[in-house]
């Protein structure tokens, strides 16, 4: 109860801190209040909604809570907010899930050129529907996993909850009873040949392959800014966080750790089981 109150107050504070002084502040605040009320009502009557209209955007999704989670992360906390040098920035979105990030980029920069990647066939269906429903121009989406080699790879889906954001090519992200499907994979380096204003990476462990590929093919020189979610933890087929940071350093990026996912000191010292940790990284080429 206290936790929910803290979250709610923090959301309101975030809206003011991120959007203060822009014409987007009030619309986002009112939309947030409406979405939270709807979420509470739906929970009370044990119902679900599979679509929502907000800020002139129409999206569909498998589950309302899933949508609210993404809404809070992307629109309320502004995790992917950035200031482009132009009105039509070029954005590479690795791990688009159902496309809320793309909606956000189009909300921020209606003329942005976006290339989105989503390996999960179910998430990709929602992604495609959402792009079409909003009639977004200059958005290309690819139903492939990003890897260092290409070819067919195994992909692990949560047994419960369609289109989960933690579905991954890494077997440790989707829980023990994950469903395995086979999906096409490709190299991100093949899609980056011109300046990209932003590369967003949220791929649940595949970031090691992606960075290795971009480094080997010398493509990071095209990228101005990176927002990445890095996962680390030995015993989970993940590399070392220092490796990823070194790749960024060699490519001339200055970075900051701006998010710790769900890690906390208390969790670390009281639960000694090994687990996957994540951190959010902001990097800018200097």
């Amino acid at each position, binding site marked *: 109860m206290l936790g929910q109150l803290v979250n709610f107050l923090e959301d309101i504070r975030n809206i003011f801190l991120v959007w203060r002084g822009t014409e987007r502040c009030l619309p986002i605040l009112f939309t947030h209040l409406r979405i939270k009320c709807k979420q509470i009502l739906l929970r009370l009557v044990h119902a679900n909604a599979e679509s929502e209209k907000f800020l002139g955007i129409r999206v569909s999704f498998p589950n309302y809570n899933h949508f609210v989670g993404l809404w809070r992360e992307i629109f309320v906390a502004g995790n992917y907010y*950035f200031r482009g040098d132009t009105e039509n920035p070029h954005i590479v979105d690795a791990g688009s899930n159902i496309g809320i990030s793309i909606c956000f980029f189009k909300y921020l920069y209606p003329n942005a050129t976006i290339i989105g990647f989503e390996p999960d066939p179910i998430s990709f269906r929602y992604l495609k529907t959402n792009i079409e429903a909003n009639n977004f121009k200059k958005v290309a989406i690819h139903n492939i996993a990003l890897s260092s080699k290409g070819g067919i790879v195994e992909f692990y889906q949560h047994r419960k909850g369609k289109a989960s954001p933690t579905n991954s090519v890494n077997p440790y992200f989707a829980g023990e009873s994950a469903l395995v499907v086979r999906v096409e994979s490709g190299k991100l380096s093949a899609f980056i040949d011109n300046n990209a204003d932003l590369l967003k990476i949220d791929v649940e462990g595949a970031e090691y392959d992606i960075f290795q590929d971009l480094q080997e093919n010398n493509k990071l020189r095209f990228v101005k800014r990176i927002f990445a979610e890095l996962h680390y933890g030995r015993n989970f087929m993940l590399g070392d966080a*220092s490796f990823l*940071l070194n790749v960024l350093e060699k490519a001339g990026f200055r970075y*900051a750790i701006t998010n710790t996912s769900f890690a906390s*000191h*208390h969790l*670390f010292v009281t639960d000694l089981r090994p687990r996957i940790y994540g951190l959010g990284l902001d990097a800018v080429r200097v």
Partner: protein
Amino acid sequence: MNHILLLIKDIQLIFMRRRGVKNRVRLLITHLRIKTKQIFSRLFSIKNHEERILGFRLVFPDYDGFAHLWREIFISENYYFESDISNPHIVDVGSNIGMSVCFFKYLYPNSTILAFEPDPVAFGWLKSNIEVNNFKNVAAYNVALGAKDGIVEFYQHPSEAASGLNSTKESGFDGIKPVKIKVVEKKLSSFVDAGVDLLKIDVEGGEYDIFEDLDGQNKFKYFRRVFMEVHQGFGAENDPIPFVLSALERNKFRYAVSQTLAKHRLFVDSPLGPYTFMLDAQKV
């Protein structure tokens, strides 16, 4: 708004702890008392250099600074750890006025503590606090820890006595001109020759030199846990953060970035700003 949110969060933290109703109530009452006193001493500019908490007596230069340390160390419990022995050996680098030493003694009254504080002013308060509370098995050294033995420059806040920003690195002072003094520098490796249950490091940028020394002298094998603040200074250059992580990786620690003071929105406008994050590590 911010103050209310912080207070609710503090109360939430107190109740999240699973260590008995009596303990929680005691913490809550102490916290509310300190918060009230802090507000009053700010409103009426009262100078208050002493406070009693949880059976300890603490002296300090400034009530605001004390209240800040109290929150960080006793409420957020940034240095809490669970030990299977009642007398863990703790190395506390950057003890400031000794709030951390006090917390370790509160947690493990029989612990053995090595405390290091380079700032002569902070060290004076640290020494008083150890004496006033009659702490046993605590050794305090007025030295800076670094990559060599010798004399090193030390930067003090110009107006705030025993400031948490004081450091052997000037980079932490964003826009303030610090006072420069000279202090004795020693290598931590020469103090460590047996098992250490916890190494706590909070040295405002000096952590890289300490890590280089410990790594070079192969002393990481003695440490079971490391809790540290890692600092990135202002500017385009990255501080040696991957070196710190790879030293932990090579020495078989599991680790997590458990807290960061950087915010995405703050890096939108100034992507080269300084920040601090907390790193917890435990040998596996």
